[in-house]
């Protein structure tokens, strides 16, 4: 498992990123992330759904109920245009952060601070 602060910071960008690949629902999100991270990022329903609802409140995602076998239907979430802009912004921020870390870790790069 990854450390909690990192999980917390990446929570919303990861959900947005996953939704950016197409409509999906809560259980599938958890499964995907778990699979993609080789089990290093595991979310519980009690955290994910409030986040989804919050995104919905902020109009970043929209939802639709669809029928599904016995029991209640399934709630599918997708990005709204506003959500896509938020995803772009998140992507840019993480890439910046990534680039920053990469430069710091690249011992060959010139940082211009040892002069």
């Amino acid at each position, binding site marked *: 498992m990854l450390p909690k602060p990192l999980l917390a910071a990446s929570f919303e960008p990861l959900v947005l990123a996953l939704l950016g690949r197409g409509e999906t629902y809560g*259980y599938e999100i958890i499964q995907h992330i778990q699979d993609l991270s080789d089990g290093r990022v595991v979310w*519980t329903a009690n*955290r994910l*759904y409030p986040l989804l*609802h919050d995104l919905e*409140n902020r109009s970043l995602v929209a939802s639709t109920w669809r029928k599904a076998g016995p029991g209640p239907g399934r*709630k599918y979430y997708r990005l709204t245009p506003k959500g896509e802009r938020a995803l772009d912004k998140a992507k840019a921020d993480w890439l910046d952060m990534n680039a920053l870390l990469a430069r710091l870790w690249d011992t060959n790069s010139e940082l211009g601070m040892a002069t």
Partner: protein
Amino acid sequence: MAAPDFHLETAIATWRRFHERRRAFSGEDLNELERHLRDHTAHLVDTGLGPEAAFHCAVHGLGDLDTGTTEYRKVHWAKLRRRGLLVHELQWRLSMLRNYLTVAWRSMRRHPGYTAINLTGLAVGLAASLFIGLWIVDELNVDRFYAEGDQVHRVWRNVNIGGEIYTWGATSKPLAAVLENDYPEVEAVAQTAWTQDIVLARDGETFRESGTYVNASFFEVFPRPFLQGDPLAALANPQGVVLTAQTARKLFGDAWNEGSLLGQPVTLDQDRDGVITGVIEDWPATASFQYDVMLSVDEFASRNTWVERWGNNAFPIYVKLREEASAAAFSAAIANVVNENEAGADEVLFTQPYADLYLHGDYSDGVLVGGRIEYVRMFGIVAVVLLLIAAINFMNLTTARSSQRAKEIGVRKAIGAERGALVGQFLGEALVLALTAFVLAMALVVALLPAFNTLTGKAIALGDLGVGFLLGSLAATMLLGLLAGSYPALYLSSFQPLAVLRGTLRSGKGALTLRRGLVVTQFALSTLLIVATIAVYQQLDYIDTRDTGMDRNNVIMVPQEGALRTQYAAVRDQLLAQPGIAEVTSASASPMAINRSTGGAQWEGRTPDIEREVFMLSVDYGFTETLRMELAEGRLFDRQFGAENAGFVVNEEMARMMEGEALGKRMSLFGMEGEVIGVVRDFDMNDLYAPIEPVVMALSPDRTSQLFVRAQPGRTAEALASLEAVADEVNPAYPFEYSFMDANYAAVYASEAVLGRLANIFAFLAILVSCLGLLGLIAYTVAQRTKEVGIRKVLGATVPRLVMLLTKEVTVLVGLGILIALPIAYYGIQQWLGGFQQHIDLGIGLFVGAGVLALGVAWLTVSYQSIKAAMADPVESLRYE
């Protein structure tokens, strides 16, 4: 590893129901979670897990939903704030409330006996308090309906007689003109005479109505809507007659208002003419004035010129001050008006707001000392006491039951109920009970209101209640419910679940002490009411049966009107020949309502420092004998000595005042002269609150106005029939009117009688409610000690010993309550009795009796339960639980 009886659908349904009950999630959120749970379980089953394990894994995968709840609610709140839909949150809260109420309702239904006891006690207590509340509101509203009524004041006289101050309301007629003319702050002055019967005749039909003489500006001071006529002009006409709508209907039929009645002639008291000049709306029940007929006081004065002189005080007087005027300044300004106009007068005038008069009308030594307000306060206290007893019941029963519910609470806490939820639940239960009791109480009030009106002589209609009163009492009930439920709520919810479930929790010592304290309080209050009731009853019985110096029973009184007065001697002889009639005599007034007095009586040896008023009765032969007054000295009026120089018969009080030997002294009053020929024992006059006054009786049959007819024993009905036949024959112009002297006497004490009856009822209710509580408590004690009783029995305890064991505590508590109550009761009753001139002496018997009664009732209440428990088969008792 899956248990054979695991069904996934059942497990999911149970999981869902659990969360539905907690209402932490909306239906949609729960659907989403359920879907998640199902997907996850299905997935795990696909990977080869058993359904039960898969389900548990999936539930675990949902995470801690309690923490989740907080997250959900954070989001939820944000959504609400954004959409401005706080209503939804309210609904959520309400649904919590509904949950509490549902649980409360179930709890009530599970213990019907306990619920019935609790409900009955509360409902009865509430209904009684509601009735008292109604009565008090009605009393407080009397005379408060006049427009600008706060500017109206009554003028009183503080008359100094030999250093003692007497406060009288009757004033001299000329005072009205002085106040009206000399004091610019006076807007109008109303004057009334005493209430009297007025006979109205029209087209040969006669009607006897209660009425009085008032001055022309009466309706300026006491405005009433005029259905016909002009308020200012109606009684400016000396012949004017103003009727109420009800009287107009009597005289002119139901269609009276179709044409104008103004100018219609009526004959008044069969000897003078009047014309109708006004018809007013009926007086409301909350008016002190209930005159059916109002005539002109000037017309009265033209026939009775004595009233025009200062010093002849006959008329109550009321002033209406201008809005800006100060009543206190006016009261001070008029203080000496009588002294300035009447030689030798020593009195101070002052005013009192009219609206206060009804409740605050008793003066002692010139100082306002109260009046009916004392009864209002007394019943207010009774209402609070009843409510207190009912509330104590409630708390007692609930805390007593708490240990029985301890397990339930332990379980609830263990599965995660928050303390707030438990408090909410218990308060919910208390509220549901209180509200149900309120509904029951309202039903009782509606059903019993007519009986209550009859009892108290009021005309309270449900329509008069007003929304405010209803809401107020509802709020009070809720408050009572909250208060009564708060101790159990806070106490029960503080249980440690672990201790409860292990069974190491003992019923708290604090709770037991509280419960005991409450029982003591309850029985102290009940005993107080019992003692008060017995004392009131004894005093009323004493008033009713004590030696009053005369015998009122079997005496019929008939007003002397028309021929009954003008041909009195012939009528008397005719009556004496009738069956059933034993004796006939007459006097100027009933001895209980002597209306003539003078400070101008003279007798030999009178010292000038004697200033007391002397009351005077004009009587016929046989008056003292017919009323069975006892002769103390000398002789009574007797035909053999003739009417010339018949002299006077006085009462002992008069004889005492005359100092020395009264017999044979010459005296004069009201223009008559003679010597005192006899002294009769003091008899009750006016009422028992007033001291006995000096009375002089003079023989003057031509000046009497009341017939006194004594029926032969057991033949009262026959005598009454004879009386009516003769009256109708000789006096057809007047409707026959009579009253029984003993009934008149009782009427003077009507308010005490009502008080007595109400006190009876309320004391009974208090005892009833207290006993209901006791019943609940003993049932609880017995249930708790079932096993103990079984073991004791097996070991050889006898039934009486067991009963003693079970009732010992109740006896001690009730006894303590009684001991606390008795001294308080003694003090309170002494205060009340002090108001009577003649009263019973408080014996020790009264208190012992009340104590024994309270204890007896308590024993009776607990005996059934404890005897039943003591007689039970020990095998059953030991199997209990």
